[in-house]
Structure formats: structure tokens, C-alpha cells
């Protein structure tokens, strides 16, 4: 039962991540301990990007082969992508309140991430409204491909848009020269999140397979 093993590994990783983030990593000079939210926030968005990359792969895979397992991959990955993007945005917002003084700001990174969320929530809504498996897979694949192709376009458009309106610099989540303990803690948490993602993905795809035969 490799999925179960994966689950335990993920749990172990998350535990290690917490230790690294709170025990090993030092208190950050400029921001104080609130910076530790980054050990959650950064791995979450990285995992979300991984998820959306898999949505693209699943989408192209289905259109190329018409085998439903590619669609199962895309659907499961999209769900997880939305989940982890949600964690990213919420943790980022909570971090922003004491640091920037606001719950939300329309800076480039936040806005791009929010748009990403909108695209894939739309993807999931579409899936929910199409009953026939082949049509659902085809439509979702097209939306998935367009959504993925749009990611760099959104990124640049939002970046230039903000540059126009906000010449003042805003503190980014991580300090520019990253101290080694902080980088290490980030790495451990990132690996943990990737394991968790893999575990969730495996389980979600297995469920999708069962649902097809229900």
C-alpha cells in the first residue's frame, strides 16, 4: 500500500517542517516571528504551481490519448491546486495584516495568485456542470490548456499594471539575501508539502477511478 506509506511520509515531513520552521529557524530580524508564516505560505504556492502544471499535462494527455486516467489526473490536480492556492492566499493575507497593516492589497503577486484561483475555480465549476464523462473531460481539457497558457500572460500583465500604479516598493514575503537556516527550513517544508500533495493526489485519483465504476 504505497499510498498509505506516502501518507505517513507526508505526516513525518510536515512534523519535520514544523520543527524546522519553529525550532531550527531563527527569529527574523526585520519582521519578527510573524515571518514564520512564510514556511507555510511559500511551500503552499509552490505546490499549487506543481498542481497546475499537472492539470496542463493531464489536459493535453487526455486530448492526445482519450484515456480517462489523464482526465482523472487533471481533475484531481485542479482540486488540489485550488486547495493550496487557497492556503497560500489566506496565509498571505494573515501575514499581511500585521506587516503591511492591511488584509489585502492589489500588488502584483497577490493579484496574480487571486486570478489563478479564479481560473481554476471556474475549471472546477465547469466540471461540476457537465455530466457526460467524455464531454466533461474534453471541455475541462480545453479550459485547462487555455488556463495554463494564460498564466505567464497574466503574470506579466499584472506586474506591469502594478508597476504603473505603485512606484513605491512593498516588502516581499522573503528577505532578499536569504539566510541559510531560513532557506533550509523553507526547503524542508516544501518537501513536506510536496509529499502531502502526492499523497492527496494518489487518493483523489483512486476515488475518481472508483466513481467511474460506481
Amino acid at each position, binding site marked *: 500500500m504505497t499510498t498509505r506509506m506516502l501518507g505517513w511520509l507526508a505526516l513525518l515531513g510536515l512534523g519535520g517542517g514544523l520543527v524546522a520552521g519553529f525550532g531550527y529557524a531563527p527569529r527574523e*530580524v*526585520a*519582521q*519578527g*516571528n*510573524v515571518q*514564520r*508564516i512564510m514556511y*507555510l*505560505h511559500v511551500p*503552499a504556492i509552490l505546490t499549487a504551481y506543481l498542481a497546475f502544471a499537472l492539470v496542463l499535462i493531464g489536459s493535453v494527455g487526455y486530448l492526445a490519448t482519450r484515456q480517462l486516467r489523464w*482526465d*482523472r489526473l487533471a*481533475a484531481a490536480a485542479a482540486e488540489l491546486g485550488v*486547495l493550496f492556492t*487557497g*492556503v497560500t492566499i*489566506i*496565509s498571505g493575507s*494573515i*501575514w499581511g*495584516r*500585521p*506587516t503591511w497593516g492591511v488584509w489585502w492589497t492589489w500588488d502584483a503577486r497577490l493579484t496574480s495568485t487571486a486570478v489563478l484561483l479564479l481560473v481554476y475555480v471556474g475549471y472546477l465549476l465547469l*466540471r*461540476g456542470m457537465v*455530466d457526460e*464523462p467524455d464531454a*466533461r473531460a474534453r471541455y475541462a481539457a480545453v479550459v485547462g490548456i487555455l488556463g495554463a497558457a494564460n498564466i505567464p500572460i497574466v503574470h506579466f500583465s499584472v506586474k506591469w499594471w502594478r508597476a504603473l500604479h505603485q512606484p513605491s516598493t512593498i516588502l516581499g514575503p522573503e528577505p532578499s539575501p536569504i539566510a541559510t537556516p531560513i532557506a533550509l527550513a523553507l526547503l524542508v517544508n516544501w518537501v513536506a508539502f510536496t509529499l*502531502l500533495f502526492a499523497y*492527496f493526489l494518489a*487518493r*483523489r485519483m*483512486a*476515488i*475518481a477511478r*472508483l*466513481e*467511474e465504476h*460506481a
Partner: protein
Amino acid sequence: MSPMPDNWGYVLAAYGVAAVLLVGYWRYLAARAHELSQPVRGGRKGQA
């Protein structure tokens, strides 16, 4: 320049919300898997 206050409340809130979401999703997976492993009663159609 005085150092930032620690704001542990916010740290707790962030990790707490993340935990709720992730554990919640895990429980959804467990529930769905359990549901699907029951013997089928009268042609129930699932939705992927």
C-alpha cells in the same frame, strides 16, 4: 528602530486555518473513499 512585535496570534491563525483546510480535505477524501467502498445500492451514479 524598535523590532517588530511577535504577533504569535497571527502565526497561530495562519497555521490554524491551513490545518483546518488540509485536514478537512483529508477527511473529505476518507469519507468519499469509505462511501465508494460500500456495496452499491441500486445504481447510484457518482460524479468525478
